């Protein structure tokens, strides 16, 4: 039996936990909504505009870096399985070294152009 059957069961159990907890809340918790209660919280002041605000695009640079490096890092896991084999071990070390080395150029590039500095 695959272990993932248990994982699927755990997901179901987790969702059931959420549903059951919300059911318990529905039974036990009071509900008396008022206009003021349902207003967006802005430190006690009446909310200004809508929920959206222009955010720093700077965050996006880190997201790019992560995505690129994450797809890079997932290849490390297959590597872990072959690195001990006699025929592929040394070769794979070089291969992965080149692979990561090339990407590191990207990180160094980003660092040198000051993209990692938070101005």
């Amino acid at each position, binding site marked *: 039996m695959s272990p993932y059957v248990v994982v699927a069961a755990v997901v179901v159990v987790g969702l059931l936990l959420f549903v059951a907890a919300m059911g318990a809340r529905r039974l036990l918790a009071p509900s008396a909504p008022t206009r003021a209660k349902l207003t967006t919280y802005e430190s006690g002041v009446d909310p200004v505009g809508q929920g959206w605000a222009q955010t720093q*695009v700077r965050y*996006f640079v880190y997201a*790019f870096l992560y*995505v*690129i490096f*994450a*797809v890079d890092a997932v*290849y490390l896991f297959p590597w872990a399985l072959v690195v001990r084999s006699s025929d592929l071990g040394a070769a794979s070390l070089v291969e992965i070294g080149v692979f990561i080395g090339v990407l590191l150029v990207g990180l160094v590039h980003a660092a040198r152009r000051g993209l990692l500095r938070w101005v």
Partner: protein
Amino acid sequence: MIHLAGPYLLAAVLAGLGTYGVLARRNAVLVLIGVELVLNAATLLLVAVGASAGDRWAAGNVLTLFVITIAAAEVCVALAVVLAVFRLRGDVDLSEPRS
């Protein structure tokens, strides 16, 4: 035992949905979502073929990994472009060319 009709059918459906998504959306980011669906249809086919015996060089799985990698790279560049467009124009609408 598993019948490959399931994966094939799902791949076809996902490809169709992706096509619809690409054509029916005006927001650039949502068009990208359609593209992702099409890509997933392709990888699903690859994996389904890989699940049958006689998959030489583990091609089905390895190619899927490659496609996922390339998709990630594609999404990065595409979203960078979208963001640059938004900064310059204030929206990401594809159907309204503006001065």
